[in-house]
C-alpha cells in the first residue's frame, strides 16, 4: 500500500458504519439475539448432559461471530460497490487501507459486544465449565469475528449480486465447519482432510476456544492458535485491499 493508515479517515469510516448499523434495529437485534438463542437451544438439546455441552459449546462460540460477521460484511461491502459510493470514496484522499481498517474496527466493536453477550450467557447462565479466565474466550470470539469480517471483505470482491455473496457462505464457511474438529477430531480425520483442516483458519479458532476452556493459564498453544487466526485475518484484509481497484473498466 502506498500510504500508511490515516487515523482520521479510518475513524470516519468506522463511525459512519456504526451509525448505519445503529439505525438498522433489526440487524442489530439479530446480531445479538441469534447466538444467544442458538446456544440456549444447544444447551437444552443436551438437557443436563454438561459434558457434551462443554464439548460443543466452545466451537459454536467460535463459529457464530465468524459466520455472522462474514455475512454482514460481504453484503455491506457489496452494497457499497454497487451503490457507487465506493467509486466516490476512491476519488477522495481516503486510502484503501483506511476503508478496510474502518470496516474492521466497526465490526470488531460489534463483535466485542456480541462475544461478551454470548460468552456471558454460556458461562454465567448455562454453566459452561471453564477452567481459565473467561475473557480469553471473549478475546478468541472477537478475533474470529474479525477473521469473518476480513474474509467477507475478500469474497465480496468476487460477488456481483447479494445473492452470490450469500452463496459464498456455504462455499467458504461450511467446509471449515465440517473440518474444524467439531464432528470428528482433526487428528482422526483421513490424512488428506486432516492436512486440509491444518490450513483452514477456523480449525485454529476452535482449537483456541478449547484451549481457553481447558487450561487454567495462558499456554503457548493458545499463542500459536491466536496468532494463526489473527494472521489469516490480516492476510485476508491484504488480499481484499488488492481487490479494491481504483480504476475499473
Amino acid at each position, binding site marked *: 500500500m502506498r500510504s500508511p493508515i490515516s487515523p482520521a479517515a479510518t475513524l470516519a469510516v468506522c463511525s459512519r458504519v456504526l451509525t448505519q448499523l445503529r439505525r438498522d434495529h433489526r440487524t442489530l437485534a439479530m446480531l445479538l439475539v441469534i447466538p444467544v438463542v442458538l446456544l440456549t437451544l444447544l444447551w437444552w438439546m443436551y438437557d443436563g448432559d454438561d459434558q457434551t455441552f462443554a464439548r460443543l459449546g466452545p466451537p459454536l462460540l467460535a463459529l457464530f461471530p465468524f459466520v455472522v460477521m462474514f455475512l454482514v460484511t460481504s453484503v455491506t461491502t457489496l452494497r457499497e460497490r454497487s451503490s*457507487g459510493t465506493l467509486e466516490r470514496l476512491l476519488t477522495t*484522499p481516503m486510502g484503501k487501507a483506511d476503508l478496510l481498517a474502518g470496516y474492521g474496527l466497526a465490526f470488531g466493536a460489534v463483535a466485542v459486544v456480541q462475544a461478551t453477550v454470548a460468552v456471558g450467557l454460556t458461562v454465567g447462565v448455562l454453566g459452561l465449565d471453564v477452567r481459565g479466565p473467561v475473557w480469553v474466550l471473549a478475546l478468541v470470539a472477537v478475533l474470529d469475528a474479525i477473521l469473518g469480517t476480513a474474509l467477507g471483505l475478500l469474497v465480496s470482491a468476487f460477488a456481483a449480486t447479494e445473492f452470490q455473496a450469500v452463496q459464498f457462505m456455504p462455499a467458504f464457511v461450511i467446509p471449515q465447519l465440517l473440518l474444524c474438529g467439531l464432528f470428528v477430531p482433526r487428528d482422526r480425520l483421513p490424512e488428506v482432510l486432516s492436512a486440509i483442516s491444518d490450513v483452514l483458519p477456523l480449525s485454529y479458532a476452535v482449537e483456541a476456544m478449547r484451549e481457553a476452556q481447558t487450561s487454567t493459564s495462558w499456554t503457548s498453544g493458545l499463542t500459536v492458535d491466536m496468532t494463526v487466526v489473527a494472521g489469516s485475518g490480516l492476510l485476508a484484509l491484504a488480499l481484499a485491499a488488492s481487490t479494491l481497484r481504483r*480504476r475499473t473498466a
Partner: protein
Amino acid sequence: MLPDLSFAVPRGQVTGLLGPSGGGKSTLMRALVGVQQVASGRVEVLGLPAGVPALRSRVGYVTQAPSVYGDLTVTENLRFFSRLLRAPSSDIDAVVEQVDLGDNADDLVDRLSGGQRSRASLAVALLGQPELLVLDEPTVGLDPVLRRDLWALFHRLADEGTTLLVSSHVMDEAMRCDRLLLLRNGELVADDSPQALLDRTDAADVETAFLTVVEARSEQRTQVPA
C-alpha cells in the same frame, strides 16, 4: 471506447459535455477523476496526471446515479465525506444551502425524492471547494425551477474561479454553458462556444447544430477515396 480524443477545458468556465447516452460522456468523466482504466493516452487535470493523490481533494465528482448513503441523513453523509476530504465543518451548512436542501438536512436520504437525492450527491462534491467539478448529468429529473437554480449555482461557482465540466443529454441545457463539447460514439464532433457553434452551422438551436455537424462529418468520410 474513446479513440483520438483531444480537448482542453478552460478554467473558471462551465463546459458542457453533450451527446446521446452511450456516447462516452461518463467514460470520459471517469477518466478525468481517475477511476477509469485508460488503455493509452494522456489525461491531465489541473496540470497533473488524472487521478493522482494530490488531485483528490481538488476535484469534486458526481456520478450519474446519486452516490450517497441512503440510510444516513443528508448532514451525516456530508459530515462523513467532509472528514475524508478534510474540509472544514462550516462547509456542511454552506453546501446544504447551495443545493437548497435546508429543509431536508436531517432527513434520511432514502426518504428523499430522486431530485433531492441527486442534489444531496451534488452537495458532497461541493465540500472543500474543489477547483474542478466533474458533474455527470446533475440535473436529470429535476423540475425546471430547480434546474435553473442549479445552473445559476454552476455559474456562480465558475465566477468564483471553479472550473466545471457538466454532462447532459438534454440539448437545451447547452445554451447555458460557456463552452460545449459534443461527443458521439466516442468521437468529439464539436468543441466550441454555443453561439459560435450555432453561427458556424447556421442552426437555430443546439439540437439542429448537432445534427448538422454529425451529418457533415459522415459526408466527409464517404468522400474520402478508398
